[in-house]
């Protein structure tokens, strides 16, 4: 088994990033779109931790903590907005959020 290098981790994060992007672009359910965004943020964190280990610098891990904080804030506000929307219109489909043209 070849040694696992930072490049391996970056490749993993790239793949995760791409999967998240596909999710955001193709799904109709807005909750799942939000979940795909979490996937992207996790890809960022994998990157940061891999670099942190490679560079022997703790700053990457500190950055990752902030990304997690941001993910929490975004999820809280996003789910609040979804509930507000659901109250006015009983749907969570992105295609039916069509009062304005995309």
């Amino acid at each position, binding site marked *: 088994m070849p040694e696992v290098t930072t490049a391996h981790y970056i490749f993993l994060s790239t793949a995760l990033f791409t999967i998240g992007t596909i999710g955001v672009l193709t799904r109709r359910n807005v909750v799942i779109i939000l979940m795909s965004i979490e996937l*992207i943020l996790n*890809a*960022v964190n994998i990157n*940061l931790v891999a670099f942190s280990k490679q560079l022997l610098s703790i700053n990457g891990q500190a950055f990752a903590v902030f990304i997690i904080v941001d993910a929490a*804030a975004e999820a809280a506000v996003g789910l609040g907005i979804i509930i507000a929307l659901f109250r*006015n219109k009983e749907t969570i489909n992105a295609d039916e959020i069509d009062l304005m043209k995309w």
Partner: protein
Amino acid sequence: MNEYFTPGDFLVLKPVILLVLFGMGVMLTDLLLEKHNKYFNAVTALVGVGFASVAMWMIQSQMNRDGAGVYEAFRGAIVLDSFSIFFTWIFLISTAITIIISIRYLEIEEENHGEHYAIILFATAGMILLATGMDLITLFVSLELMVISIYILTGFLKRDRRSNEAALKYLLLGAFSSGILAYGMSLLYGISNSTNLVEIQSKLAQRPAGDPLVMMAVVTLAAGLFFKIGAVPFHQWLPDVYEGAPHPTTAFMSVGPKAAAFALFLRIFMVPLGPVRDQWLPLLIGVSIATMTLGNLAAISQSNIKRLLGYSAISHVGYLMLGLVSGNDTGLKGISIYLLVYAFMNLGAFTVIVAMRRRDLIGDEIDDMAGLMYKSPTAAVLMVIFLLSLAGIPPTAGFLGKYFIFLSLLETGHYTLAVIAVLYVAVALYYYFRIVSVMFMREPIDKELPSMSPGIRVALGVTAAMTLIIGIYPNPFIEFANRTVLAVMR
């Protein structure tokens, strides 16, 4: 821990700290207020902005006395130079005007909660930090502080479906773009082993030319930033969000956050990505042409005035990016002046739209403005000034910004770009003129007058005056912008 932080570090942040404290204060005093005197929240918030302005003024004069061109704080995470001071003034002014035009609007919508003003203040704090930040993490967190505040402000009319939908769209695409931006930032960190922009710049300069990792970072950072400023092809959220958001919020985010996003854009492209300019320049040229084209052409067919101004905002982003394309002193000066002027004229135009919101009329269709000349001549005339300025006709201020940007293009030899840009000004004149013709040529469809509250009067007066003053007597402002350029080029 005294060796790491001095009180001076916090003094540099005084405006931000004051804004946050007043934001929390607004939420607390809101609990004591009866339903009919909620306007007091706006007063508190305005006082907060006033205090922050005074603090900013004091820091600035202190800086002049010291003769120091720049204050660094928090081990270089915050840099207060004339670039950030310039932007801070734009933010403070746009926040103050947004607060005074929101009072009547929120009363009409029956959503006049203190949280609205508190969140505006928090967003302003985020914007100031965004303009002063020199560290990737600081920039990312303050960017999120700003955009999350604006998601909330966009969805603030939660009984209104358009507002909900706009907020949701903005949040989904905004969070997506933040993710992409963060990916780019993580790569920058990995390349340079630092989160400080200046250190990244020096590390990036040492990389071999055409380094794929750098290219990947440039692409992801650019994509994220294009989303934030609303450049083609990442502009789709912008017209929808402008249309669905409450009127004052649209006014606010078309000015303050846009300027803040542009400040981030300039900082990232000039400082850390400066050494790899030849990699992103073609990308930037293509995107700016596409942005101007789409913004101007799509604006022609709009029937909703907020949407129209949204597309016009996209086209302005195209012009602004041209300043970065030329990248010389004149171009950067042009960007600064443009953003300052844009703040006044765009806020003015949106203030007129806010005034159109009456008891039973949302007032954001172009037809709603029919015969405004006969109902409220002042508003109509002022609207004409703002629209002329947006189109860039002398002697209004809008001309000045476009002038410097086109000049810089000529100076750096981008003649084709300059010709394209000038052509699109003509297109812009056409669709701005449509609004004018509706206001002047058509008969009013109803008798109800625009709601010209005192706040709106003040806002209109200030913005119109500034639009004309900057246009007629531009020297002090150009001087101010010149110093900004020196700061960002250092």
